[in-house]
């Protein structure tokens, strides 16, 4: 198991009130799974994502990532776990505007304290994986939305993480570019990458192999994609005549 969540709870205090965002979540994710987490806003899917990404600590329960119990770790140790085992892909890409694509991809390796040569080589390889070798000297503002998200994916992959966590990765992209990104995810999945993706779009979720629906801080349903309602949606129609890339 890459991920083993046991009875995870998260309680926020708002004034005197206690709001339970997660209410006893149990979840196992195996190596090379491709999971989509769905749910309405307020269902606790973002909180779950933050806990899975070690950005936040649960109030109760245990979380084992890649065989390590993260729930007893301090801030520096969690930073180390994020650096080594988790790759984040965000809705708004979060690239540093002043750095070139290659430098953006190198960022996690700086904190991994990799040497200059290995850093360069690994970053170049990651950028190759997402098919942007010809754009690595460009800055984010010289790239299209899809290209930016590819750079972000390369950055997430560069440290060879155990899991790739994507939070609405296509939320800022048009449908054509979204398809490209999802195709890239499929390709990564085929090559063995474990992927967990949060989305509220059924069209996006159907690309995953397993769909988890959250409701009121609990896992509402956890089914293979074939048994989930998303599989009954009609395939999206080809988008003729619409500009393919939205200018940034």
């Amino acid at each position, binding site marked *: 198991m890459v991920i083993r969540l046991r009875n995870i709870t998260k309680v926020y205090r708002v004034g005197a009130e206690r709001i339970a965002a997660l209410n006893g979540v149990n979840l196992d994710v195996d190596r090379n799974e491709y999971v989509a987490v769905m749910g309405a806003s307020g269902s606790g899917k973002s909180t779950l994502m*933050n806990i899975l*990404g070690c*950005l*936040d600590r649960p109030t109760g329960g245990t979380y084992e990532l890649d065989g390590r119990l993260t729930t007893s770790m301090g*801030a*520096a140790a969690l*930073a*180390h776990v*994020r*650096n*080594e085992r988790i790759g*984040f892909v*965000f809705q708004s890409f*979060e690239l*540093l505007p*002043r750095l070139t694509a290659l430098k953006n991809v190198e*960022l*996690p390796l*700086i*904190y*991994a*304290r990799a*040497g200059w040569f290995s850093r360069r080589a690994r970053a170049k390889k990651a950028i190759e994986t997402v098919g942007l070798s010809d754009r690595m000297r460009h800055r984010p503002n010289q790239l299209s939305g899809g290209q930016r998200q590819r750079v972000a994916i390369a*950055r997430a992959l560069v*440290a060879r993480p155990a899991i790739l966590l994507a939070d609405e990765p296509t939320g800022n992209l048009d449908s054509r570019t979204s398809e490209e990104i999802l195709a890239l995810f499929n390709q990564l999945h085929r090559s063995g990458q474990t992927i967990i993706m949060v989305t509220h779009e059924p069209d996006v979720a159907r690309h995953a192999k397993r769909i988890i629906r959250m409701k009121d801080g609990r896992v509402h349903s956890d089914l293979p994609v074939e048994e989930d309602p998303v599989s009954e949606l009609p395939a999206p129609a080809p988008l003729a005549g619409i500009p393919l890339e939205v200018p940034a």
Partner: protein
Amino acid sequence: MNPLQLLIAPVVLIYQSVFLALGQVWANKVRSILTTIGIIIGVASVTAVIAALTGMKQSVLTQFESFGTNKIFVLPYPPDTGKRVVWRWADLRFHQHDFDELLEHCPSVATFTRNCDYTSSISYGTHTESNVDIAGIDPQWHQVENRSVILGRPFSLIDNEHARAVCLINKIAQDRLGLDTDPTGEAIMIGDRRFIVVGVVESRAESSMFGNGRSDAEVFIPFNTAYTPDNGFVVVAASKSPDVSDEAQAEITFYLRHRHHLRVDQPDNFRIQVVQKFVDEFKSVASAITMVAGGIVGISLLVGGVGIMNIMLVSVSERTREIGLRKAVGARPSAILLQFLIEAMVLCLLGGMAGLLGGEGITAILKSIPQAKLEQASIPGWAIALSFGFAAAVGLLFGMFPAIKAARLDPIEALRHE
């Protein structure tokens, strides 16, 4: 990670932070300049003030030096008893043979001369000069004053013993009297007495502080020729080195008290002035002034530090998302802290460098003003080191709060920040 990497890793992180910080400064050029103006002005004024004080100290010390820091003046002086007692000159004045055994009893004294000065008019042919300084000197005067005879000969012991009517003159006297390029053997009139010129003495070293700033005609005659009991005389001694001038002073005091048959309860009836003492006092006053001035101007560096803190706080809140992302990809709180601390220090050190250039500029201007007499002004190495150290410390001090704020940011909140 092998041990070598473990050792290198923190260094790599620091140098990357420095690069990052330089990038930030370059990206916000105008802001960085405005922010560091406080530091720039602070460092520039500290270094310029210290340079000016150093120059002043040097020029004064140089004048002391040309005057001779090993010189000791011994003069008759009424004792300071507090009571208004009228002393008779006859009781105070030195006697001609008071100092005959001085050298045997004062091992720290190298040599001495008795000086008996008066003014008179001199003339040669049709040229007449009035109010010329006539100095009765011992032959050792040349060693004490460090002025030798450049033409002719010095006084011999016989000149002195027999109180012969011979004289030495300086170049100015020679010119004023319209004497030949080689005036030796010529006879000039001092008052109504005829003197034979035996040599020319080299001119007094340029000094505006001492010797009344005059470059006048001087005439020297043997001590015994000039001496009259009514005039009296003073003694100028030279200690073997400036370091032993205190010992020399004590020895002369002991010797003179003995010569004057003073009892233990009687005060000195003479006074001894040591040039080295003035030098020491001046030095301590000068360094006190330097410290006070440096300290006052250094406060402006602290004010500059507030500007740095302000801009670092702005920088942290502007880059909240960036901090969130860096944390998400694995930056430890300490790495974020280091990044912002180094950025503040880089700002301060760049300001310090610019300030130092400014200080050098001001120093160059000061040097070029002839009236200021600061030709020797320069920024000493310790002031450069101090102002850089201080700039770095200001960066560390005032960068700490913003850096801690950045390091403590919650990555989720930070990534959500607009």
